[in-house]
C-alpha cells in the first residue's frame, strides 16, 4: 500500500530521471556542468510560471493568462524597471495586485476562471505591446548578473529549482495557511462553514500566482537580456502541463510543488531530447504530447491499483 502511494509521488522524479538518462545517452556532451547549465537555464522561468499556475490550480481554478502575463512583466522590466527602478517596482507590484483583484472578482461574482483569464490574456498582451511596441529594451544589470551566476559544483538552474520547489513545498504542504489554501480548492464549503474567508484565501493565492509570474518574467528577461511581448506565449500550456506532470490534479487541492518544478524541468528537457534526436518540428509537438500521455497513463495505472485495494 505504501509502495503504491510512494510510487505515485515518485513518478514525476522517475520521469525526469528517464528523460535525463536518455539525453545523456544520446548526447554525452550534456553530462557536464556547462551542459546541464545550458540545458536547464530556460527551465527556471518555466518552473516559476508552473508554480504560479499551481497556486491557481490549488484553489480549483485555471489560469490561461500566465504566458502573456510573463511577457508583460518582461516588457515592464526591460523598459520601466531599467529606466526608473522605483517606477518599475511600483508597476510590478501593481501587476501582482491586479492578479489578486482578479481572484477577488472571480470569487465574488462566481465567474468561471477560464473565461476571465482567457480574456485577461489579451489585456496583458495589449498592455505589453503598448509598453514595448517592437521587441527591444534592456535587462537591468543585476538581473543579467543573477541569471548568469556560476555556482561551484552544482549548476545554478538546479540550485534554483531546489530552492523554489523546497520553499513552496514547505509553505503549501506544512504550514497552516497551506492547509486552508488546499482545503479551499478541495472543499470550499466546508472551510467557509468553519469560518475561513474564501474571498481572502483566493485573493492570497492569486496574488501568490502573480508574484511567481513576476519572478518568472524577471528570470526570463535575465536570460534573454531584452524583451518581446510574445516571448512567453507558450508558457500557459507549459505551466499547466508541468503541474499535471508533477502530480497535480484538476480537482483542486491536490498539488505537489516539488513535483510541479520537476514536471517543468521534465518538459523543458523533453524538448531538448527531441531536438537531439532530430525529430522534425512537425512531429515535435506531437511527441511532447505523447510523453505527457505516457506519464499520465502510468499515473492512472498506479492510482487504479491504489483504488482496488
Amino acid at each position, binding site marked *: 500500500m505504501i509502495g503504491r502511494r510512494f510510487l505515485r509521488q515518485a513518478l514525476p522524479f522517475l520521469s525526469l530521471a528517464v528523460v535525463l538518462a536518455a539525453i545523456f545517452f544520446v548526447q554525452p556532451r*550534456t553530462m557536464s556542468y556547462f551542459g546541464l547549465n545550458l540545458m536547464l537555464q530556460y527551465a527556471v522561468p518555466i518552473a516559476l510560471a508552473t508554480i504560479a499556475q499551481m497556486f491557481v490550480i490549488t484553489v480549483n481554478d485555471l489560469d490561461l493568462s500566465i504566458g502573456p502575463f510573463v511577457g508583460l512583466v518582461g516588457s515592464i522590466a526591460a523598459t520601466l524597471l531599467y529606466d526608473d527602478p522605483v517606477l518599475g517596482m511600483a508597476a510590478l507590484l501593481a501587476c501582482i495586485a491586479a492578479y489578486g483583484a482578479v481572484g477577488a472578482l472571480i470569487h465574488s461574482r462566481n465567474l468561471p476562471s477560464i473565461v476571465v483569464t482567457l480574456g485577461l490574456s489579451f489585456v496583458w498582451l495589449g498592455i505589453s505591446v503598448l509598453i514595448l511596441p517592437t521587441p527591444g529594451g534592456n535587462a537591468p544589470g543585476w538581473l543579467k548578473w543573477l541569471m548568469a551566476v556560476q555556482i561551484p559544483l552544482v549548476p545554478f538552474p538546479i540550485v534554483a529549482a531546489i530552492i523554489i520547489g523546497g520553499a513552496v513545498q514547505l509553505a503549501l504542504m506544512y504550514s497552516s495557511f497551506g492547509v486552508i489554501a488546499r482545503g479551499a480548492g478541495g472543499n470550499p464549503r466546508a472551510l467557509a462553514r468553519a469560518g475561513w474567508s474564501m474571498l481572502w484565501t483566493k485573493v492570497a493565492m492569486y496574488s501568490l500566482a502573480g508574484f511567481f509570474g513576476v519572478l518568472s518574467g524577471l528570470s526570463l528577461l535575465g536570460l534573454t537580456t531584452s524583451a518581446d511581448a510574445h516571448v512567453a506565449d507558450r508558457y500557459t500550456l507549459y505551466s499547466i502541463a508541468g503541474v499535471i506532470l508533477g502530480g497535480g490534479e484538476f480537482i483542486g487541492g491536490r498539488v505537489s510543488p516539488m513535483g510541479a518544478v520537476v514536471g517543468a524541468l521534465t518538459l523543458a528537457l523533453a524538448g531538448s531530447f527531441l531536438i537531439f534526436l532530430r525529430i522534425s518540428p512537425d512531429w515535435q509537438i506531437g511527441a511532447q504530447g505523447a510523453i505527457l500521455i505516457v506519464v499520465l497513463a502510468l499515473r492512472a495505472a498506479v492510482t487504479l491499483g491504489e483504488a482496488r485495494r
Partner: protein
Amino acid sequence: MLKKTLACTIALAALMAAGTALADTKDKKIALSNNYAGNSWRQAMLKSWDKVTKKAVADGIVAAADPFTTSQNQVTEQAAQIQNLILQGYNAIVINAASPDALNGVVKQACDAGIVVVSFDGIVTEPCAWRIAVDFKAMGASEVEYLAKKMPDGGNLLEIRGLAGVFVDDEISKGINETAGKYSQFKIVGSVHGDWAQEVAQKAVAGILPSLPEVKAVVTQGGDGYGAAQAFAAAGRPTPLIIMGNRQDELQWWKEQKDKNGYETMSVSIAPGVSTLAFWVAQMILDGKQVPKDLTVPFLRIDQNNLEANLATTEKGGVANVEYSAEDAAKVVAGK
C-alpha cells in the same frame, strides 16, 4: 584608399579560397536555426539550404550542415534550440530569428562558447553576431526610381501594402512614399493592404478602384501584383503598370501580357536562397576570412529581358529564387 585596397585584398583572398583552399573547414559543422516554415518563401528557403549544403557536404567543404526548425515561431523555443545546438558541438550557427532582440542572451552564450553566429532575414542585434540584412526601404525606393525613369510625365499611383503592423511593411512603404515625395510628377492616390496575398490584394483593390481617378502605375510589396491585375481587369479599367514581386503567378501573367501587347514592368523581391548566402558567409568566417559584421542582401530584380529565363526556373506556386555559390558570397562580402 587603404580601405579600398583592403576590400580588394579580401575579395581576392576570398575568391581564391572559394576556388581552391576550402579544405580548412572540412571537419566543421554548421547548423541552421530557423523559426518558422509556414509559407512558400520559407519552404523555398529551406529547400535552397538543403540543395546547396548537401552538395557542400558531399564535396567535403564542411562536415555537416543540418537545418533545425522550431514548430511555433516562439522565441523561448528557439532559444532552447540554439542552446542545444551549442551543446551538440556545432562550429557555426546560422539563424533566421524569431525576434531581433530576445535571442541576444543565447546568441552571446554561443559566441562565448567560440561559435560563429550568422543571422539573416530575421536578424539579431547582439554585436558578436554577423548580420545579413535586407534593406526593405531601398527596395521600396527602387520601385519608384524605376517608374520615374519609365514615366517622365508621371501620373497617379496606387500603393498596395503588406500586412499591417509588420516591420517589413512599414519599411517598404516608407521607401516608396519618401521617394515618391521626391518626384513631384507622381501622386499616390490610394493605399490598401493586400497582406502579401493575391486574393486579399484583389479584393482590396476592387474595393478602392471605383473611388480612384485614372491610375498610371501600381507599386506593390510582392505577392499582390497578380491580384491587382485581376481587379483592374474585372473593373474594366485599363491595365496600369504593375510592379511585380517575383511570384510565379505574377511572372506568368506578365509574360502573357508581354507576348500579347508588349507590356513592360519590372519585378523585385528578396530571394529565399539568401539562406545559402548565410551558409557561405559562415563557412568563410570559419575559414578564417575577415567578414564585416553587417552585410546587406542584394534584391533579386527581374526585368523585361530576363523575364523568360527566371520564369522557366520558378516552380508553379513558388517564388523566383537564386542560390548562392561560394564565389557569389565572396562578392557580396566584398561589397560588390
